[in-house]
């Protein structure tokens, strides 16, 4: 293989990427919001894990944990977490048909069916969790 020859380095101008590149295009900004949303999804998982830990410490400790979740600031935080989690979930569900190519025999399943199946799976799993956590 012959590597391609570049002009001498001192004759080239190398541009630098701005720190604010993610504000230059709407799609870049939305990408950053999607990445940021993972932090809030992780935060919710962390809060839930703390809940399990508090539960292991006894009923009184767990009650204190539940009381802390009822404060106005915690409620606002949960609304923010919910919004970011929904954004995270919906954006990834919409990217699923691009990533997953489902083949049945020699035929490819249309991407729209993969999208519908992803939505159905999300709804069904959410309903099961809702039943297990809140109804039961």
């Amino acid at each position, binding site marked *: 293989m012959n590597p*391609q020859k570049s002009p001498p380095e001192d004759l*080239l*101008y190398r*541009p630098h990427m701005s720190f604010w*590149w993610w504000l230059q295009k709407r799609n*870049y900004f939305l990408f950053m919001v999607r990445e940021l949303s993972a932090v809030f999804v992780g935060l919710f998982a962390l809060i839930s894990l703390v809940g399990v830990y508090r539960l292991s410490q006894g009923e009184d400790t767990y009650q204190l944990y539940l009381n802390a979740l009822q404060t106005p600031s915690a409620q606002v935080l949960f609304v923010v977490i919910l919004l970011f989690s929904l954004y995270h979930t919906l954006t990834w569900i919409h*990217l699923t048909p691009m990533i997953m190519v489902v083949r049945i025999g*020699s035929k*490819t399943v249309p991407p729209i069916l993969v999208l519908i199946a992803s939505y159905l799976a999300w709804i069904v799993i959410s309903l099961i969790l809702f039943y297990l956590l809140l109804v039961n």
Partner: protein
Amino acid sequence: MSTIKITVTRYNPETSSEPFTQSYTIPYKEDMVVLDALNYIKNHVDGTLTHRWSCRMGVCGSCGMMVNGDAKLTCATFLRDYYPGEVQVDPLAHFPVIRDLVIDMSDFMDKLLEIKPWIIRSEEKPLEEGEYLQSPDELNLYKQFSMCINCMICYSACPVYGHDQSFLGPAAIALAHRYNMDSRDEGQDQRAEIIGSHEGIWECTFVGECTRVCPEHVDPAAAIQRSKVQLTKEYFLSWMWPWGN
């Protein structure tokens, strides 16, 4: 007569170490593309302007530049979409600039070679046995990824490549995927070493802008994510099924 103002980034290493902009007011016609404007400047106003182009019909991939901040094929970008506003033309982002609007593409060309963009056979069958047959379904698995014209517009739109030029990049990975998906090819393992390396698919954070800007409607973002799924699957299979299939 209608006119339009075209502002162009100029760079001449013999006279300055930094680029500068220069504006030209030229006659405007509704059917002019940005490349026509650059050619008009070159032929009638300022012969020192340097830009790269060839086919003028969206096939050769030579005339990719930044037009008002977006990576575009200038032969397929009409001035009327900006008129009566001004048009700013810059060299493709993220690439070293040689002169004016001409970028150094050697990094991309090296990467193209790295992924071995040709059909690899573990053993070639004799010529007298005829061609390797392929069904339309098998063709459809990779056809869109074979439409790439190597214009490098996807690299210009990719912030990952902008941050780290060691990233293999969208077009090279899409082309690797094109050959990996080809039923006649047996070179997946050889390409896996390249695309599965740290500088390969795992660098991609799935911004997806490569797919949005592609003038040929190739979907490099999909190629990269599908390669991630494929390589992950193969890794776990080799772990669970070490004696192979």
